[in-house]
């Protein structure tokens, strides 16, 4: 997502592909105004933990340094032995410097409502109880962007996308390409 954001000031749609370990992401933005965009993303860790989400990106400061705010609402779906599922909401800030090659950093938090059901069968009936357990994840990135052309930007970055506080998640690595403008 970081790779998308320098384009907000120019109010053009973007599409981006980030590939890495363990996180990869497909994302797109559509400008609503010069400072506000609709955003959609599909994020996955090794095709086991899936995080589709949509929301808004807002360009908060547009000077030598750019400060961008992100709000997302979505869903967590994790398959496998530790299967889990539930709604998510995330807020994040991205800071990056204008230029051809520039540093980027972001920090944020994601709240997850982990849903689970307990099904009890008795001789008389079957009851299903649904529980929602709150969980919190710390989000962060540190990287370098390279605006190769007016339309294409490349990024490399370290990523922290914690599964759940207080568990520790090893930082991931990734590289991304962003296309800005109409095809």
């Amino acid at each position, binding site marked *: 997502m970081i790779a998308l954001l320098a384009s907000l000031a120019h109010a053009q749609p973007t599409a981006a592909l980030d590939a890495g370990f363990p996180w990869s992401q497909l994302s797109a933005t559509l400008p609503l105004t010069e400072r506000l965009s609709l955003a959609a993303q599909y994020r996955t860790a090794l095709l086991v933990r899936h995080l589709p989400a949509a929301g808004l990106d807002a360009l908060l400061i547009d000077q030598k340094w750019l400060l961008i705010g992100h709000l997302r609402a979505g869903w967590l779906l994790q398959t496998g032995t530790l*299967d889990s599922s539930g709604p998510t909401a995330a807020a994040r800030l991205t800071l990056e410097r204008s230029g051809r090659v520039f540093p980027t950093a972001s920090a944020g938090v994601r709240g997850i409502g982990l849903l689970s059901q307990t099904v*009890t*069968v*008795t*001789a008389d009936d079957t009851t299903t109880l649904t529980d929602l357990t709150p969980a919190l994840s710390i989000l962060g990135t540190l990287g370098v962007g390279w605006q190769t052309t007016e339309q294409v930007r490349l990024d490399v970055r370290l990523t922290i996308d914690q599964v759940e506080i207080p568990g520790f998640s090893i930082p991931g690595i990734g590289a991304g390409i962003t296309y800005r403008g109409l095809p």
Partner: protein
Amino acid sequence: MIFLLGCIPQTFFQTVTVTGQIQAEGSGPLLAEVHHARGAETGTLAYTGGYLETLSPEEDGSFSLTLTVPTDEGSGLAVYAWQDSDGDGLLCGLEEDNELAGAATTETLDFEMSLEVWLTEPCAGAEVAIAMALESAQP
């Protein structure tokens, strides 16, 4: 959204009322437990037993307990019992080396079950006694 809601992790339980009788020829307190007959693992990791709850048998050996069984964690049901002949709280401790134990098993899980446990095996722990009961129940 319906697809996502359909992916919520579920844990399944069944209520079971297990009644029965422990047949013991010796004297001393009777101790008993309810187990899964078989654990959830299969193949080379398969095991017998799987503790669920402690039973409190009457002095005459009869028992009755209603419990909620997690059906994902095993199959069937077993009642394991032993007689603490020397009253030390240990199965075959230093003072007594032939305290009798036994188990009764069923491969299915019904809402109401009746089991009769015969204490015939000296010093058999739950896993061993349940394995022997399962083996003797095979056709």
